[in-house]
């Protein structure tokens, strides 16, 4: 006999709320699927090369930002903010929807002492870890090409974490409303215009005032502004607004998402 459990209640330390184990699970998976993470770092670099450098040759300096800012300098922070957003959203929408429906991963996790809250927080944690990795590598690369002013630009990393948090929480909230894989088209319908219009490729001054107001409401706009301020060492008092905006957005979305997930996962 291979000495199986004999029902002694001792020896099982109960520590619920272990959100960190969700991160461990994801790290273990990424040992097998690391090219995915590599691709996530590769993508903003591609955009930077195509737009920052390629289109940059057509653009020259970007007007209306005070000091002379080259086009690559203008685009790089926006691409980083977008990468942080996409990584976090993908994790808590696409990947999480698969775990909720096809794989039923959470169903088995919730038969352990883990709570729904730990699972939700854990997935958000993981989105932050990913965001930090992507931001750090991106920062190192652009610093080598002289597009970021170190050490001030190190602020980019906490900024990327905050963006990751806000969008991971938004993604978590979104996933509780999805009815089928078809609904991901609707997410794209919001994400693509936001990517194109939130001052990623051209400054706010291009728009008429009415459109400017609309853009200023977008969460990606504040994310881009936050990272841009860190990159260029500009912004003055502005980053405070962006920080508050993203933090409030994240906290509120997370609170509602956890409540809705409780209903879905523990019917």
């Amino acid at each position: 006999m291979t000495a199986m459990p004999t029902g002694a209640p001792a020896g099982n330390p109960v520590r619920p709320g272990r959100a960190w184990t969700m991160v461990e699970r994801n790290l273990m998976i990424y040992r097998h699927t690391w090219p995915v993470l590599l691709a996530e770092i590769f993508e903003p670099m591609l955009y930077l090369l195509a737009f920052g450098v390629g289109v940059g040759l057509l653009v020259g300096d970007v007007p209306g930002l005070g000091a002379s800012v080259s086009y690559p300098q203008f685009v790089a922070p926006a691409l980083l903010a977008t990468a942080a957003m996409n990584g976090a959203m993908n994790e808590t929408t696409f990947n999480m929807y698969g775990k909720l429906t096809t794989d039923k991963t959470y169903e088995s996790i919730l038969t352990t002492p883990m709570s729904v809250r730990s699972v939700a927080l854990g997935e958000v944690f993981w989105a932050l870890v990913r965001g930090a990795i992507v931001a750090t590598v991106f920062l190192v690369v652009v610093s080598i090409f002289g597009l970021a002013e170190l050490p001030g630009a190190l602020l980019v990393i906490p900024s990327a974490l905050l963006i990751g948090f806000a969008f991971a929480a938004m993604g978590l909230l979104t996933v509780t409303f999805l009815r089928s894989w078809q609904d991901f088209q609707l997410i794209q319908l919001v994400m693509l215009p936001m990517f194109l219009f939130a001052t990623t490729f051209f400054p706010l001054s291009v728009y008429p005032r009415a459109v400017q107001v609309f853009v200023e409401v977008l969460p990606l706009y504040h994310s881009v502004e936050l990272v841009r301020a860190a990159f260029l060492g500009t912004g003055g008092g502005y980053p405070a607004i962006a920080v508050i905006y993203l933090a409030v957005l994240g906290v509120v979305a997370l609170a509602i998402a956890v409540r809705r997930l409780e209903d879905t996962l523990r019917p």
Partner: protein
Amino acid sequence: MTDSSTVLIDAQGLRKVYGRPGDKAGFTAVDGIDFQVRRGEAFGVLGANGAGKSSTMRMIACVSPPTAGSLRILGYDSGADGAKIRARLGVVPQDDTIDTELTVRENLLIYGRYFGLSWKVLRERSTRLLEFTRLSEKADDAVATLSGGMRRRLTIARALINEPEIVLLDEPTTGLDPQARHLLWERLFQLKQDGVTLLLTTHYMDEAEQICDRLVVMDAGKIVAEGAPAELIARYTLREVLELRFAPGERQIMTDKCRGLAERMEELPDRLLLSTDNGEETLSAVHRQGVQPLTALVRRSSLEDVFLTLTGRSLLD
């Protein structure tokens, strides 16, 4: 503590209604059931699909709050202390929910982490459990390469990672081939020998007879009978059953001719069952009536017959 009379699970008036609390159109899956499971026993919940077995199991696993009634497990209230109870349960769900992105061993390791167990403990335990479930050679393989029987054994190994006192198994051998089933039964029997309390649902009568010390039969959310398998057979059936098959065209006429030849008669889509104390005698009586069945079989009564008697339908419907 190891006294076999200790009640580990105590359900009183347990109900589960799906739908919003005030919603009158809610669906009642479990309709006020009482039962107790004692330490060291293998307890079965039998029923057709939709009888309320899985809902009952989910409530006991503390992943689905009861709508009404009391449910105490290991001395805790299932509603208030779900996490404490889950720490001492092992759950084998009906669908294998193993992580397909991880290897066999990684599945055990990460699942153990959810219980807050240390990596050191988990490395040792996972080796032992893979050996116990005969998966040692597959330890570093992708889950996708496992057969159905292996996947189920991995799910069982995973459920044992926290050395649980109670293991819940929801239809553990559904979809497995006979050889895989027998290996699984053998392992479950071993667990029982080791003092683990088993609670399983099944719609296979042979499985229930093999494994369960005691069982309840559920129908439409209610418990309709409770007892040891042999006890239930003695209580609800006669000693033997005569099974008759007829040519399709003659069925109705032949069935009518058989009426009154046995104390109880059940018509199934493909055959006619006559309950009796002496099958051979009844068969002679059938022949004397001029009934010519295509095939005739006399056998001992089984749990299947108990179920048929109690619910009026076959389990595998």
